[in-house]
């Protein structure tokens, strides 16, 4: 019967499929022809599993990992990543036996508490005090370790991605700024000096509204990104808030805080916060801001900038984004004309608001499982990555000097790739290609103000390539960057109100910033502002949050 033949056919096909898959599976799962056997942890102290707390494409045969296995430090690192949400994956893992050897995560209260609560990790404080055996670990600046100690003096993770010199910290990328298209500036008959005050900027925007872009459409005078994924401490409006003197930066704290006359003012209570949004609203009403600021996602924003539709951008130049000039050799595209300008002077504002707090403290934590059989391998590896050399992060990321990259003329000077195949795969933009050469584990190392790889990249195939580092140097001098103070570092109490209402606070901020900006007139703005304050209290329990902040701050400072 026909159906029999059909189902026989299907049966055969599925059998074949099952066989193929099983055959593939029996190879131990991962592609490792030159394997030390498909199993990790043969107990010889030379291999361990590292679970990455973010999604990544893994290739355990990458060139850099091979170097680690065969040369230095002689440890095979087998990576595993989660394809879905990392916190959920962590929860799942912790509920079913935990991870095998080690796991590295972005520093996070949620993750930290989860790890400690699960009772599946081991305390590590003794290993930071063995300079003979683990010099790298012993070189971790003591303040970081002190801060991590719990009541019993235990330290539950190896901190990584910190500044080797907390007293002379690397300022990091400073990208929150105002950028102007100098070609439009010229057409408007104005100069960069004219933009030094807010009134000057307003004049420029008014003029820009009458200028057309290459395809004849009138320009959007001002634009910035309001990505629904941004956060309090990281969003483009902060560049505008900085001009108004509002502190928007933080160093791992729950909320940006400024100190005024000995008082702590939390972000939303700052009167200048309202003033800044009033100005944005004024510009919006006058049609001097792209009406779609409130809805554009990253792609659209970037496309508009790329096709030259915007005259002035505020926010992080990484959002604009930096490839707009990095890929250019000359004025072939509008992106060539972008220049960063100092924060315009606002009447009555004495100091630019801090939008970036230099935080030398560790950004990542490595947790080690209680049940691991490869402790030696783990410690050996991180001892290697944490060697206090300025170029170590580069060595970890791309291999040692002389292998795939080398100095242009002297150590700690400029550098470039010397292996063409490596470079091609590395810069292909494709995750799978890149993972073939390096897993990019720079964060297992540390950084140093003496030398930062991407500010010393010696290859200048395109004239615009160096601009980004020039910009960041300029922006760093504009007054929005300062060092960390204790009040920048107040974290959320485990199980407390900030943990509970934090997300709702964020939602309120996002909902109302749009309303404030889009208000049709002053009356509506005031109404929206009142509604905002109301929602802060009702939905996010603002007064209670402030109280808890103060308590946590006092506890933190008192304890020191």
């Amino acid at each position, binding site marked *: 019967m026909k159906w029999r033949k059909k189902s026989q056919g299907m049966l055969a096909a599925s059998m074949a499929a099952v066989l193929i898959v099983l055959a593939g599976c029996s190879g131990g799962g991962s592609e490792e022809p030159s394997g030390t056997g498909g199993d990790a942890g043969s107990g010889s102290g030379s291999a361990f599993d590292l679970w990455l707390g973010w999604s990544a494409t893994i290739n355990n045969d990458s060139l850099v990992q091979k170097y680690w296995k065969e040369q230095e430090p002689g440890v095979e690192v087998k990576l595993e990543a989660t394809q879905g*949400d990392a*916190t*959920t994956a*962590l*929860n799942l893992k*912790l*509920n079913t036996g935990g991870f095998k050897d080690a796991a590295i995560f972005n520093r996070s209260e*949620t993750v930290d*508490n*989860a*790890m*400690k*609560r*699960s*009772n*599946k990790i081991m305390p590590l404080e003794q290993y930071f005090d063995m300079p003979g055996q683990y010099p790298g670990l012993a070189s971790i600046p003591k303040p970081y370790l002190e801060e991590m100690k719990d009541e019993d003096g235990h330290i539950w993770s190896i901190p990584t991605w910190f500044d080797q010199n907390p007293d002379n910290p690397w300022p990091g990328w400073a990208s929150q700024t105002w950028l102007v298209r100098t070609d439009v500036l010229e057409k408007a008959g104005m100069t960069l000096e004219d933009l030094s005050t807010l009134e000057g900027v307003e004049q420029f925007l008014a003029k820009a509204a009458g200028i057309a872009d290459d395809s004849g*459409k009138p320009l*959007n005078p001002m634009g910035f990104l*309001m990505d*629904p994924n941004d956060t309090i401490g990281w969003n483009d409006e902060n560049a505008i808030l900085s001009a108004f003197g509002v502190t928007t930066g933080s160093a791992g704290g729950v909320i940006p805080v400024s100190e005024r006359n000995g008082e702590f003012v939390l972000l939303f209570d700052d009167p200048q916060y309202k003033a800044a949004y009033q100005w944005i609203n004024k510009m919006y009403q006058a049609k001097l801001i*792209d*009406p*779609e600021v*409130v*809805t554009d*996602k990253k*792609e*659209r924003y970037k496309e*508009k900038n790329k096709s030259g*539709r915007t005259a002035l951008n505020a926010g992080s130049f990484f959002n604009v984004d930096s490839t707009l000039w990095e890929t250019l050799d000359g004025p072939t595209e509008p992106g060539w004309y972008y220049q960063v300008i100092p924060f315009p002077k606002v009447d009555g504002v004495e100091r630019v608001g801090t939008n970036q707090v230099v935080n030398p403290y560790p950004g990542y934590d490595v947790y080690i499982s209680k049940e691991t059989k490869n402790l030696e391998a783990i410690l050996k590896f991180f001892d290697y990555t944490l060697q206090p050399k300025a170029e170590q992060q580069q060595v970890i990321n791309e291999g040692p000097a002389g292998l795939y990259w080398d100095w242009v003329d002297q150590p700690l000077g400029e550098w470039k790739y010397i292996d063409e195949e490596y470079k091609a795969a590395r810069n292909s933009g494709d995750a799978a290609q890149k993972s073939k050469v390096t897993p990019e584990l720079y964060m297992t190392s540390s950084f140093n103000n003496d030398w930062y790889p991407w500010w010393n990249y010696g290859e200048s195939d395109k004239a615009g390539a160096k601009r980004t580092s020039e910009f960041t140097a300029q922006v760093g001098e504009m007054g929005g960057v300062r060092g960390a103070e204790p009040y920048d570092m107040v974290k959320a109490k485990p*199980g407390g109100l900030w*943990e*509970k209402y*934090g*997300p*709702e606070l*964020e*939602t309120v901020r*996002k*909902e109302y*910033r*749009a309303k404030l900006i*889009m208000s049709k007139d002053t009356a509506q703005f005031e109404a929206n502002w009142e509604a905002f304050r109301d929602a802060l209290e*009702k*939905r996010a329990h603002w007064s209670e949050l402030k109280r808890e902040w103060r308590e946590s701050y006092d506890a933190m400072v008192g304890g020191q």
Partner: protein
Amino acid sequence: MGRLYKYRWQYLMILPAVLLLFLFNYIPMAGIQIAFRDFQIGSSIWSSPWVGLDNFAFLQEPHFWVVVQNTLYISVLKFVFGFPAPILLALMINEVMHGGFKRFVQSVSYLPHFFSWIVVAYILQSLLTLDGGLVNELIGKAGGEPIFFLGSTEWFRPMIVASGLWKEVGWNTILYLAAITAIDPQLYEAAKVEGAGKWAQIRHITFPGILPTISIVLILSIPSLITVGMDQIYPMMNSANMEVSDVLDTYVLRSGLQQGYFGMATAVGLISSVIALFLVLLTNQTSRKINGEGLW
């Protein structure tokens, strides 16, 4: 006992299903108790302390009810438009006389089902943008003012309903088309002999013929009324339309899961399930009374 033996083959056939459901649905269902425990990431379910109804505290947050309203509004709208549409479409496709065109329509109409919402949202945004999007260009040519679709709270729901319809209507016709082909053609022959025109045939043969299918799909789609696809909403959500685009799933994700508050997420799920159960039984009874077709 004799009856059980008489049906032994049938029981054997049902056995794998029962076993699978037991292993993969009923055993994990014990986890519903998380709704009543203080389960934090890192601790085990069994050792978490009982906290009674603490996890249900969200019921007192006013914003929760706003979110519920948003969700219901959208899902009811989607249902009202989205349920009849595939039926009508299936009937229309069935009436097409040209075989080639019929097959063409069938094969093409369900294409959007396969597009990821991330990409569909992007296309939708490109069409609706103020900055030269097709729709606003047409409005302009017709003499109207451009409409800020993407930033408006009034247009959000129509956008979601329309795009949801466009994406799924073709796919949802498949089952109805299958049902239509299962109708005995002799019924049509007899009707033609008695002089019934096309319209009468549809009314008296086709539609009643697929009524069982319609009923079952209706009842089975009740559980999904409570949730509104996150996949669709999330890419279209932005600061401007947040007050109507914040739905249950995004709320639970934000205030529950991302903070590790699984207790709250499970509690929400439990309430939704209970409501869904109630609605399913209600719909089942109603359907039985109206046309004798129920779930079983």
